[in-house]
């Protein structure tokens, strides 16, 4: 019986791997390949190879301006989300209080509510308080709201490994509450912070749904701008930009892993 499950389990894994290849990897490969086309329209396989659409992307003003918007929004909202995530995780990990369960749900709710609903709701609020033209600010707030649950989750689970007695030991040895946190707790939760930050950053950098609602005229994110270009421009520039975004996201992953991630996991 166990054998049957083991066999069918293996079969299932194979099937899932195939699905993953067909539906996720294949489109990415197609996009990457067709971005190197020499033709003036998107086609696969490309009739010939060139980097002209990458040059076109680098020369486009809209790419640069929205790229910098996206970077600023992702960096700022990730930073805030990490800070909030640490604070909230600490409260949840250390204190029992009335309404704790409700707080848990509230803070995790953006994971449950669809992005369209969140975006629409935030837009309504910004119209209500007449900040709908402060696009950058709205985007930062919106992304922070949606990504904080991710950072909270991962920081919280990494805090499970840092027993309260570690902090108490540090305090009894002369560390103030604050330095006990920085010297003992922080190093232990860095993996959780890194994981949360990666998720928050990639979400923010790639999000379309929420950003579409909150982008004002002068503050649009790269993915939102990319969407409208794909709709209205048939040329392969957006494909080149998409490929670049994949590369940037991957590079970000690797950078974080190498600098903070691996250093922390090693020798533990």
């Amino acid at each position, binding site marked *: 019986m166990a054998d049957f499950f083991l066999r069918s389990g293996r079969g299932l894994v194979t099937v899932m791997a195939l699905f993953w290849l067909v539906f996720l990897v294949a489109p990415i490969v197609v996009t990457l390949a067709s971005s190197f086309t020499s033709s003036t329209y998107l086609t696969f396989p490309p009739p010939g190879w060139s980097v002209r659409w990458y040059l076109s992307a680098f020369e486009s003003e809209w790419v640069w301006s929205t790229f910098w918007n996206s970077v600023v929004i992702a960096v700022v909202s990730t930073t805030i989300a990490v800070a909030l995530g640490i604070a909230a995780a600490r409260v949840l990990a250390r204190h029992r209080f009335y309404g704790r369960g409700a707080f848990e749900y509230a803070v995790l709710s953006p994971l449950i509510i669809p992005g369209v609903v969140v975006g629409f709701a935030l837009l309504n609020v910004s119209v209500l308080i007449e900040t709908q033209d402060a696009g950058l600010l709205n985007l930062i707030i919106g992304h922070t709201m949606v990504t904080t649950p991710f950072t909270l989750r991962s920081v919280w689970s990494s805090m499970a490994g840092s027993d309260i007695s570690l902090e108490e*030991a540090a*305090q*009894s040895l002369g560390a103030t509450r604050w330095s006990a946190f920085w010297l003992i707790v922080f190093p232990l939760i860095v993996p959780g912070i890194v994981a949360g930050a990666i998720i928050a950053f990639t979400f923010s950098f790639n999000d379309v749904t929420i950003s579409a609602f909150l982008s004002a005229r002068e503050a649009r994110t790269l993915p939102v701008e990319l969407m409208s270009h794909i709709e209205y421009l048939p040329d392969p520039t957006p494909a080149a930009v998409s490929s670049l975004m994949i590369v940037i996201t991957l590079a970000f992953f690797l950078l974080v892993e190498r600098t903070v991630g691996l250093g922390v996991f090693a020798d533990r």
Partner: protein
Amino acid sequence: MSDVEVSGVSKRYDDLWAVKRVSFTAPAGSFTSLLGPSGCGKTTTLRLIAGFAALDEGEVRIGGKPVDDLPPWRRNLGVVFQNYALFPFMTVFDNVAFGLRRRKVSRSETASRVAEAIDLVGLPDLAQRYPRQLSGGQQQRVALARALVVRPDVLLLDEPLSNLDAKLRAEMRFELKRIQRETGVTSIFVTHDQEEALTLSDQIVVMNLGTVAGAAPPKAIWEQPESAYVADFLGVENLFPGTVGDGAADDGTVAVSVDDGAAVLHVAADRPPDGTPDRAVVLGIRSEEIAVRRSDGADNASDGPNALDGTVREFTYIGSAVVYQVDCPGLPAPLIATAQEEFPVGARVRLHLPPGAIKLLRPDAPAEGPEDRQ
């Protein structure tokens, strides 16, 4: 070295008093054990002394000074935790040096004091290892070194030996005693193991349901526990409620009736049952003080006082002796007695309870029930 005075300290969590009006004094340089069953408030008491939790009532003084306004990092204490709480990403050296670095001790002095502390606790050269690379006993020693290196006024230990296996525990007990003697640090040690408390302590504070049930040096508490609860916790196996009769007999004993006179035991009268209202007492005797021999069926009056006939209900062999459960008519529960001789189940035996070995104990006040803790 400083003494520690805990006076009338209480701490409430949600709907229960974790500790309630706990008072005791740990004299400077002494070793005091807090002994009691799980949940009786030992850890809470220690945490209040350390300042990890704020007390609701009472006062803690260390070296005569109230410390209630001082945060833990300004109390100059050493704490050894049950799980050791070593910093996992720091080497043994960095763990031990942590307190010195917080005190801005110079680099060279830190190095020499860390080496000294590691030497004191008998650790081999493991300074560059990480905690996870150490055995439980070694981690234990690192935790001790880390707490002692700062030369604390008081050393607090929360069941530090309970995670070790039996052999190591016995070994660390000697080590702890040696280290405490060499450093002379005032130590407060939490345990639920009466043997640990007896072997290590100058003073044992027995706790029950958040309160102090008795405090005395080991010998005193062993020979004359303050109450039935304390006796029970210190391993007095046989405890029976009884009523003291009038006056002393010619042989210097008093008669105590057990179970409304179903049996009468004579107890050496030089043990006054003070604080026992209505002459209600609890009789206590340790299993090894009861003599067991084969019953010849003859009248037991010739054997002097307290000779009881009984039937072996069950026995267990413990290596050095055999422990018997013996049913005796007139006693509410079987007597526990140890003997060298072996008797089968069902054997008729005669038990002799020396009048001098029976303790007259104060029954525990009914007010100490759990409902009082709400």
